[in-house]
């Protein structure tokens, strides 16, 4: 909306509504017709946000590929179905990373449009701990196997 400052200069105030950046089924199919919050930010920031999203998607795709590779290339493990459990865990982790990527992308986009602080996230730390724990467990498994076999 347009308002008039006392000095006579015209300025624009951001029109705010409560639509989320990625809200509602109709926006999936016709996003450009839906209003979005705030004002369009510098496109370079939007593109940087998009590249961050894509980097997370690649992380998710790598986890999914790792899960598929586990199921297809590992020999059967001593514990029954352990191979499948590892594979499915990696697949689930990949799907969670992809969903979280789009959520974080939308929240960052919204924050930029409203001129707010960018959202922080504990997710990278959580993912790092999960991956490190998995790697440590595998190291322990390899060591136990090496000690047991003559």
């Amino acid at each position: 909306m347009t308002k008039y400052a006392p000095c006579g200069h015209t300025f624009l105030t951001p029109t705010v509504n409560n639509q989320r950046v990625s809200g509602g089924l109709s926006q999936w199919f016709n996003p450009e017709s839906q209003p979005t919050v705030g004002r369009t930010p510098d496109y370079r920031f939007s593109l940087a946000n998009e590249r961050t999203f894509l980097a997370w998607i690649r992380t998710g795709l790598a986890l999914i590929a790792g899960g598929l590779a586990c199921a297809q290339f590992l020999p059967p493990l001593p514990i029954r179905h352990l191979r499948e459990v590892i594979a499915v865990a990696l697949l689930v982790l990949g799907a969670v990373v992809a969903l979280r990527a789009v959520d974080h992308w939308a929240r960052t986009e919204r924050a930029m449009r409203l001129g707010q602080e960018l959202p922080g996230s504990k997710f990278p730390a959580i993912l790092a701990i999960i991956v490190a724990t998995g790697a440590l467990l595998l190291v322990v498994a390899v060591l136990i196997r090496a000690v047991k076999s003559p």
Partner: protein
Amino acid sequence: MTDDHGASAERTRLAWRRTGLSAAAVGLLAARPAFSPDAGAVRWLTAAGAMAGWTALVALAYRRTRGLRARPPLPGRRAVLAYALITVGLAALGGVVVMLQSSP
């Protein structure tokens, strides 16, 4: 706003392409069991699903890079959301592939 002469649009285009290459690895790994001699119809169906998902991702990336060619680049809200959802779909399909693998 200073013009970056399309550098950020180009970086983004290359990021879409890299992501498509990662998706290719997932698609091929998901389709791989269909090439074993005793592969049944279900494995062929999951392989077809994986290829369809990969094709959809590549097509989305292609569409998005055309939007990036505009000055200023068009927003890619729909492409981003669809890409993430198809990736989740590929993960679910991967779960089916793993289950089929474990039951010979």
